[in-house]
């Protein structure tokens, strides 16, 4: 589904990623973990075309994404829920969702897409005429996920969806992700909430200082001292 091969990325002279490799198979939920500044968001920017890797290859469904502009990557079926949600705050919920179906692959199925999103997040149907910036953080996250779903993606990339949300909300959002995955959408999940991420996913990668520091099944990583050290240091029991 998605192959990232030996990707190297830089901001000016500053190397942010080097030799990063990652694979997602169809139907998988994969977690990407790592401390702040490790390069997780940079990797996502490389995958979504916002940043061109200096070396290496990103392949989606077998096709290299090297020269594909960012907006066209969405058309290929790869949608992202960016960190901090990044809604169009002055627009209504429904306008936000409809913009999610801007790409040709989703345009004709806009009505069905809206129904699907409202079915997943019933609360959004009631607030569909509201201005997005007036919503609570949890509802905003729902709109952000909904907007990405509207593009009818085959791979959904989420950057820190739990950020700033109450634990109960995080739980329900993760429940939704499980459902979305069950409907056939592969998921790449970037999370700081290690425990929750590893519980949801089957496999995970650990990024540290721009390099892949570990990879394995979620269950094994949950017990891995290295993971605990990466996050908690001596805090780890």
């Amino acid at each position, binding site marked *: 589904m998605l192959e990232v091969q030996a990707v190297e990325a830089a901001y*000016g*002279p*500053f*190397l*942010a990623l080097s030799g990063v490799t990652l694979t997602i198979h169809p139907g998988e939920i994969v977690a990407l973990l790592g*401390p*702040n*500044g490790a*390069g997780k968001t940079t990797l996502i920017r490389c995958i979504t075309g916002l940043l061109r890797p200096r070396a290496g290859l990103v392949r989606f469904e077998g096709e290299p994404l090297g020269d594909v502009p960012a907006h066209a990557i969405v058309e290929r079926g790869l949608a992202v829920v960016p960190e901090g949600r990044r809604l169009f705050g002055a627009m209504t919920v429904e306008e936000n969702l409809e913009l999610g179906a801007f790409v040709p692959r989703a345009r004709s199925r806009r009505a069905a897409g809206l129904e699907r999103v409202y079915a997943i997040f019933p609360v959004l149907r009631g607030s569909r005429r509201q201005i997005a910036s007036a919503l609570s953080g949890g509802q905003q996250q729902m709109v952000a996920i909904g907007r990405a779903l509207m593009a009818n993606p085959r791979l959904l990339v989420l950057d*820190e969806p*739990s*950020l*700033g949300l109450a*634990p*109960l909300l*995080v*739980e329900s959002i*993760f429940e939704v992700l499980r459902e979305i995955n069950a409907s056939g959408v592969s998921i790449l999940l970037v999370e*700081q*909430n*290690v*425990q*929750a991420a590893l*519980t*949801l996913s089957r496999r995970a990668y650990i990024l*540290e*200082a*721009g*390099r892949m520091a570990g990879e394995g099944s979620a269950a094994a990583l949950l017990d891995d001292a290295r993971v605990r*050290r990466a*996050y*908690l*240091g*001596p*805090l780890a029991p």
Partner: protein
Amino acid sequence: MRAVSDVSFAVAEGELVGVMGPNGSGKTTLFNLIAGALRPDAGAIRLRDRNLAGRAPHRVCAEGIARTFQLVRPFAGLSALDNVLVGRLYGRARGARHAAVGEAERLLALVGLEGKAHLLPAHLTLIDRKRLELARALATAPRLLLLDEFMAGLNPAETESAMALIRRIQGEGVTLLMVEHIVWALMDLSRRLIVLSAGEKIADGPPDAVAADPLVIEVYLGGTRGSARRA
């Protein structure tokens, strides 16, 4: 919106205190308040009994508080030496110019930038730019130095050398308050940790005690109990 509320703590002279907490817990806001970049709505910030709350950043700097930025902000159009000279010629030291050049060169050497005095920041690597920013902050002759995620984005070897550098600076008698995400480095460097969560101080004490604090573990592992139950 309240980014930081009712946070109180004191730092002793010569101490190195680490500040940790998850994203969005108010660490950078706290630094901005101390450095004068933000004005607190209430409360006091005292340095040696002088209240600095609400003072402009350059006045705070003149009183002896210097900082580095989370994303490095060197003066792009000025050479490394001139970057450090700005700190030396303003700040708390304000020496004569010829003496300042000597001092700036000494600081560049201290942080490991000897031989790079005439390079523009664009020609330095990230770690070197961080070193440069540190030298610029040190040049203001701070009593208290605020380091905002100094080690973010560094590889393990660079992190080690950054830690050595921080120890050297502490050895020079500078008091340090540092926000850091790389917890093990923080645990290694400091004898005392402050943990923020959602803008409030939830722990303050020696690393071992903080590490054992159930509230801290809860905050750091996220919805542990919730997801554990589900699994």
